[in-house]
């Protein structure tokens, strides 16, 4: 088996400020394949681990545009081509009346794209993840913050990385079996 038996090294922190500082230093030290886990969203944390953009926004935009065109196109086709009906003397292409359905379908398609696009891009649902092999990790849903350096990182070296993480002053360091 060429697969490394170690998934990575996990450092535990007590507060959001600590893990943000630690993540910044880890990123600055050249580690790129890192991830952080927190009990609630910490806005600065994703910047600190060097995570910039994801494609969910693009997926939502495309979904929204498709929904918008579907909604408008459907009504245009019905009112102008399939069943042209004179409603109170208004033009067949009665665009103000088309707006609500167009708007609703835009929202619907955007939301569905957001949900499924998010699931597709982050790989959920995920029945197994190595970080749960560490017993202390269950505290991540309560009050602890965890920083993981993956063993797949180019700079990863069992002893050096452990020493580096130790220098960040974590509460504990654990190996994550894969």
């Amino acid at each position, binding site marked *: 088996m060429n697969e490394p038996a170690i998934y990575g090294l996990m450092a535990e922190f007590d507060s*959001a400020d600590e893990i943000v500082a630690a993540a910044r230093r880890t990123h600055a030290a050249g580690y790129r394949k890192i991830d952080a886990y927190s009990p609630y969203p910490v*806005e600065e*944390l994703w910047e600190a681990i060097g995570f910039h953009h994801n494609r969910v926004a693009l997926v939502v935009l495309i979904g929204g545009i498709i929904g918008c065109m579907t909604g408008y196109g459907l009504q245009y086709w019905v009112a102008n081509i399939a069943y042209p009906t004179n409603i*109170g003397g*208004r033009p067949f292409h009665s665009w*103000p*009346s088309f707006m609500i359905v167009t708007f609703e379908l835009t929202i619907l398609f955007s939301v569905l794209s957001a949900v499924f696009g998010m699931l597709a891009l982050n790989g959920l649902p995920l029945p197994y993840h190595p970080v749960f092999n560490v017993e202390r990790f269950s505290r991540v849903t309560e009050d602890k913050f965890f920083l993981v350096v993956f063993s797949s990182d180019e700079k990863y070296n069992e002893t050096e990385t452990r020493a580096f993480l130790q220098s960040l002053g974590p509460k504990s360091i654990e190996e994550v079996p894969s």
Partner: protein
Amino acid sequence: MTTARSHEMNFLAPSVVRTIGTRSLVIGLIFAVLAIVGAFVRPGDFFHAYLLGFMDWLGVTLGALAFLMVRHVTGGTWGMVIQRIQIAAMRCLPLMMVLFIPILFGLPHLYIWARPLDTVADKHLREHLQEITQTYLNPHGFFIRAVIYFAIWAVLVFFLSKWSAEHDHPPMRDTSARTKQLSAPGLVIFALSIGFATIDWMMSITPGWISTMYPLIILIGELMSAMAFCIVIESILSRYEPMSTMLKPSFAHDHGKWTLAFVMVWAYFSFSQLLIMWAGNLPEEITYYYRRFNGGWGYVGLFLVVFQFAVPFCLLLSRPLKRDIRRLAFLAAWIMVMRWVDLYFMIEPNYSETFRLTWLDIVVAVAMGGLWLAFFCRNLASRPLLAAYDIHAQKVLEPVHGGH
């Protein structure tokens, strides 16, 4: 610790404020002379333009007042950074009171109900006017109601301004309970008064036409004007102390979010009015849009849809843009121009079936804007840019932490 820091700092407005004030005054006076010439040459055009300019700058004044009250009710550090800008803007109310007086002399030029009824050609309209001018829409009522509106706004401005000035001197105090007690009912009274004022000053241009959405469009437009104005001013001030220390990207971000919200609500209100009237298709309602879809006015409407809604909306979705005060300020300045276009689209088609833009429309708005800005700069320079002894203002000086 923060207290000590705030006392070390000098919060006085930079000298650039006085420079802008002087230049605005010069521009305002030059254009005012042109406008006065126009008033004698083309009195009709002048008063149409005058109402347009007046509503535009009244919007910034009252929008600032409303925004200040919103912030007093909700709390939030985003509002402390621009609080003194809002107060300086709402303290322009006395100027707007003086500028309202010429409208009283132009009533027959502006409102059909102020003319002798024999001159009204339309029989149905004449009958309608005979009834309504006896009870509500007549010059006396117009004057008395205007006095009431201005009195309400003046009371709110006076107390909120006075209480804020008390924070310029020790001791450190928390008076948020008192401002909240005034602002909460103040917001309700303000919304009602601006609603009635809009009916009197703008909707009564076409007395047979009624829209319940119309005052709300004006109200939200005023809030949008005020927010855009604050962004422009804070951007200019952020090149100098103390605003360069006070203004953080997270505050600019919040102001950008407000602007995005107003752009959306404005579009929502404006479109709702169209949709309801389009669906009803009643002669007394749809005439408003019949005129605005034809005679070249439709292009102005389209321009509004694209540049007051679509483009600002798409740009404001961007997080980096909202956090960059310089770029945000350009957009805000553009929105202020579009506020004028929106009011122009509301007012001018009432007087002309075909597209018509006179030089006075622009000259009067610039003249009024110049005088208004000069008055604003005087107000802004007269007090520090941060109420140093307000306990809530201290948060502006704290470094931003993670989380919420």
